[in-house]
């Protein structure tokens, strides 16, 4: 059934295939990825209440700040800052920028910082200047094999003066957390 020319063609194909299988060709390619420093945050609402005797205690509330950070190995750092971008509304209650009485203030402390150095001492929230919530050093990372938790977390404990000058009601302010890393 097969002609001689056809049989030769098959053998040639077999030989060519065998030749291709016998050769190992190596090549190399350089893959470059640039991994930059980065810091991101995730925040939750804070509801402040007071308890105990009348005017005995301040309004208090806590918030869990979550963050993920990667800083440069050499000379890197990161921080997260907090600023009030909208004062309490409506008018007649507490105010960060123009408190009704001297000494009224919205302050916060930091605790349970999983990575970095949390703020120390009560810090006063401002509508004009940011305050450092947490500072992180070089070679920081978040995830498997990194120090801390995933995500990193820190508890912020807020305190607001309970001034009789506040009218009754519900008041709301906006806090903005800004993360930066190098």
């Amino acid at each position, binding site marked *: 059934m097969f002609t001689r020319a056809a049989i030769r063609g098959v053998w040639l194909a077999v030989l060519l295939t065998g030749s291709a299988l016998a050769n190992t060709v190596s090549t190399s390619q350089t893959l470059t990825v640039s991994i930059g420093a980065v810091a991101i945050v*995730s925040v939750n609402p804070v*509801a402040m209440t007071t308890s105990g005797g009348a005017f005995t205690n301040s309004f208090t509330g806590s918030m869990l700040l979550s963050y993920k950070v990667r800083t440069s190995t050499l000379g890197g750092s990161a921080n997260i800052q907090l600023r009030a971008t909208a004062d309490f509304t409506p008018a007649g209650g507490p105010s960060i920028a123009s408190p*009704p*009485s001297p000494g009224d203030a919205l302050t916060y402390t930091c605790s349970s910082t999983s990575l970095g150095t949390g703020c120390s001492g009560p810090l006063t929230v401002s509508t004009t200047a940011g305050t450092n919530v947490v500072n992180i050093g070089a070679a920081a990372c978040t995830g498997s094999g990194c120090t801390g938790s995933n995500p990193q977390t820190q508890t912020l404990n807020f305190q607001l003066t309970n001034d*009789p000058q506040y*009218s*009754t009601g519900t008041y709301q302010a906006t806090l903005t957390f800004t*993360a930066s890393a190098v």
Partner: protein
Amino acid sequence: MRKFAFTIALLALSTTIGYAQTWNTSGTANLSVQVPVEAAISIDTGSLTTNLTTSGGLFANPFTGTTNFSYKIRTSKSSGTGKVQLYVSTDFNCASGGPCVTTPPSSGDALTYTCTVAAPGSACTGTQTATTVAASATDVATFGADAKSTSTGNSGSVSWSLTNDPKYSTGTYTATVTFTISAS
């Protein structure tokens, strides 16, 4: 069964969405505070014991003295009210022959007072007669809606007058007066 499973899956999805975190280089958080109605009163240290004394001619004047107090108050913004009241929670030792609020030795004998209160309070009007009945406590000050004291508290005082009745046996007699502040 399928419907049940679907519902469970939907609930799980909703829960996940509800607690989903958003990540960015900046984040905003709403800070809310509920400011309630509150009121507190404090008798000034120097008035914790108020001595009633008399002067002038014999039996010419009643025993008098002043109790100073401070108050903090915040009444409801829309329709709030408040008041400071007092009553004699422990009468003089009536059996000892001295003054007695409940059953005075002579008709007309009384422990009375007038009031002074800094705004936003309104002082009691006229002369009030103290009672030993808590449910009938008498006013010292009243407050209207959205009444707010200063952060350090506002002042008030009660000026006492006790009849100088010759029937009182000599001696020292003590009664306890309870001040109550309330707000709504």
